[in-house]
């Protein structure tokens, strides 16, 4: 499996911080999503309690995953779906290639699917001579640029409207050159027009699945555009591609997760379209696919079961962790170098492509803890990043200088009588130097920090000293 550019994370991040266009694009969207989540959460008093229920549903499902997978497959087959299991990315690609070949497909439409990114599906189908068309607008925007998603629910979050207009003028050359493309509505209408033709021409439609319901053998997709529905309703073959952890037991369970998903993702009460599909067209049905295939992928996930990382399999891919991440919102998703960016990517990527390739990702965190605070599934993301750092350190993969630094720090921190006076001195000096502005524009040895932002100056006393005063009842 490709490891993308994760090994070059540091260079990627530096380039992203210096990319004015990217910084402009990033400045508004993710913080806006975070603010809307906060409003939606406040409007539903049960939200926090639902997070606990959601976590328990996923923990229960994972604990019985073998049996829920079996129950799902039985139900889905009874409803007329073909269920395929794929142990690896390559297996999944081969299964899907074969289905497209058997269907005599020429045009394939796709709903948004991060798992299809994970297995590199588009390149493989295109190599077979198929025309593969992404139909989620954001996915279409990046497909025509030859890029990958930079956010799991807002894949084109790194693009500005001007870039979209330039791409449309470059690509849609059949349309009049003097057409007006100033408003987002005009750009959306143009994309709608072009993609409508593809929907109607497609032989196979491929979607992901947000959930697979064991009770009924149903696959579920969630969209705002309705592109997933046109992708799976119009062609004669529908393929749903999902990973093993998408299982949930019942319709009640999926209802709970739906209450959490959109609120966490975009701050909507619910996404515009939530679609539950169970098998192909039935006798008397005037529309819908004639054949329905469900491809269930493992690709390393089963190896996380029973380990500290099992909790990451609760993820419902809402993107809240990245919307609230100071690292993600500063550098965007491409810098992470592989399919899943942000805090969830920092935990999942090393598990899927190895710590040797993805080692920088769990290290790129301030441990501010917001990701865990907002995660609807209560995944302890900072704790799991720490787990990877410890693994890296134990394996001896931490760079020498960094190791020495850590050792020096540890030696000092274990000797309070040395540590406290030094901390007091250091903080007093920095506080004195930074008193005028309250922050440093430049500081020796800290250029990595100050190149892109100011370093806040410390207050004049250490936390330990303030704490001692507080306990002694000294007024501040």
């Amino acid at each position, binding site marked *: 499996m490709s490891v993308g550019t994760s090994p070059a994370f540091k260079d990627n991040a530096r380039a992203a911080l210096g990319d004015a266009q990217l910084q402009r694009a990033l400045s*508004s*969207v993710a913080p806006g999503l975070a603010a809307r989540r906060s409003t939606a959460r406040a409007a*539903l*008093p049960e939200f926090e*309690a639902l997070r606990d229920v959601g976590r328990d549903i996923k923990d*229960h499902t994972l604990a*019985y*995953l*073998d*049996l829920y997978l079996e129950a799902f*497959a039985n139900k889905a087959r009874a*409803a007329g779906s073909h269920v*395929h*299991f794929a*142990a690896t990315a390559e*297996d999944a690609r081969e299964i899907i290639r074969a289905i497209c070949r058997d269907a005599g497909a020429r045009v394939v439409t796709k709903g948004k699917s991060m798992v299809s990114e994970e297995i590199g599906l588009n390149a493989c189908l295109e190599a077979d001579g198929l025309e593969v068309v992404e139909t989620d*607008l*954001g996915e279409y925007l990046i497909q025509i640029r030859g890029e990958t998603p930079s956010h799991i629910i807002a894949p084109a979050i790194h693009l500005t*409207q001007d870039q979209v207009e330039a791409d449309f003028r470059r690509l849609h050359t059949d349309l009049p050159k003097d057409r007006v493309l100033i408003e987002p*509505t005009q*750009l*959306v*209408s143009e994309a*709608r027009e072009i993609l*409508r033709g593809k*929907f*109607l021409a497609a032989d196979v439609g491929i979607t992901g699945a947000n959930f697979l319901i*064991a*009770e*009924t053998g149903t696959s579920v997709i969630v969209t*705002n*555009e*309705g592109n997933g*529905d046109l992708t799976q309703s119009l062609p004669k073959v529908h393929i749903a591609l999902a990973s*093993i952890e998408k299982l949930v*037991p*019942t*319709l009640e*369970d999926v*209802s*709970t997760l739906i*209450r959490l998903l959109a609120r966490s993702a975009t701050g909507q*009460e*619910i996404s*515009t*379209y*939530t*679609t*539950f599909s*169970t098998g192909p067209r*039935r006798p008397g*049905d*005037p*529309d*819908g696919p004639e054949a329905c295939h469900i491809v269930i992928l*493992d690709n390393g996930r*089963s190896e*996380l079961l*029973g*380990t500290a990382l099992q909790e990451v399999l609760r993820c419902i891919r809402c993107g809240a962790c990245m919307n609230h991440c100071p690292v993600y919102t500063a550098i965007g998703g491409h810098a992470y170098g592989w399919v899943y960016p942000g805090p969830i990517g920092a935990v999942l990527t090393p598990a899927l492509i190895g710590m040797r390739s993805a080692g920088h990702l769990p290290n790129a965190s301030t441990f501010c803890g917001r990701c865990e605070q907002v995660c609807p599934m209560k995944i302890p993301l900072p704790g799991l990043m720490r787990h990877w750092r410890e693994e890296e350190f134990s394996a001896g993969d931490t760079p020498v200088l960094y190791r020495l630094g850590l050792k020096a720090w540890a030696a000092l921190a274990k000797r309070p009588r040395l540590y406290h006076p030094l901390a007091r001195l250091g903080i007093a000096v920095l506080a004195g130097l930074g008193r005028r502005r309250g922050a440093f524009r430049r500081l020796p040895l800290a250029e990595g920090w100050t190149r892109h932002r100011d370093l806040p100056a410390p207050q004049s006393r250490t936390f330990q000293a303030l704490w001692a005063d507080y306990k002694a009842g000294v007024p501040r």
Partner: protein
Amino acid sequence: MSAGEGAWETILTKVRKGLGVYDSGQRRAVVAARLGTPPPSLVPARAKRPKDELRGMLRTFLEGQSAKVVEVASAAEAPAAIGRFLRSTNLPLRVRMGEDAYLAGLAWASEPALERLQGPADGEDSVGLSHATAAVAETGTLVLASGPDNPVTLGFLPETHIVVVEEKDLVGSYEGAWEKVRASFGRGAMPRTVNFISGPSRTADIGGQLVMGAHGPRRLCVILVRN
């Protein structure tokens, strides 16, 4: 297919090894119980309000999600309400619909100019008309079940979607809607497609700005028929 069977065995073995479990009657009983009698959900309090309040809630959420909501006092008034909506939006007086008996039985004679085509949408129709199985107040969500009565394409290909929902099918929660689906299809079974629809199609993929009518309908009109 044999390759698939091999992969299933591989995954099954890895999952059980990871979890440190084996196939046991006791574990199967836990799963069978959960699937057969799901534990009750945590249903938000807002979904348990009296029906009158639910009706207002449905309307408020749907309108907040850019749908138009028209209440009519009885089924007899539905065709006229549809006609008024089409005229007010400058749309042709032509709708495409399925074989739904309730819709077929409406008093269409009151709107003689309104043309009704039957069958799935083909991309040429401008207005689709569906009959919802349920409406969920907690988030302003219509629940449609696909089939010859209400082909799924009616809700996605035309630029305008009109959905008729009866007040008797108004429920507070998603669970309430599943009760209705289970009542018609049986526990553990589903229509081929169940669509939760909570407004017209939209996207914010261009610079984060919200635009209606991404791929599906630009307009959603809900006709709520009072009992």
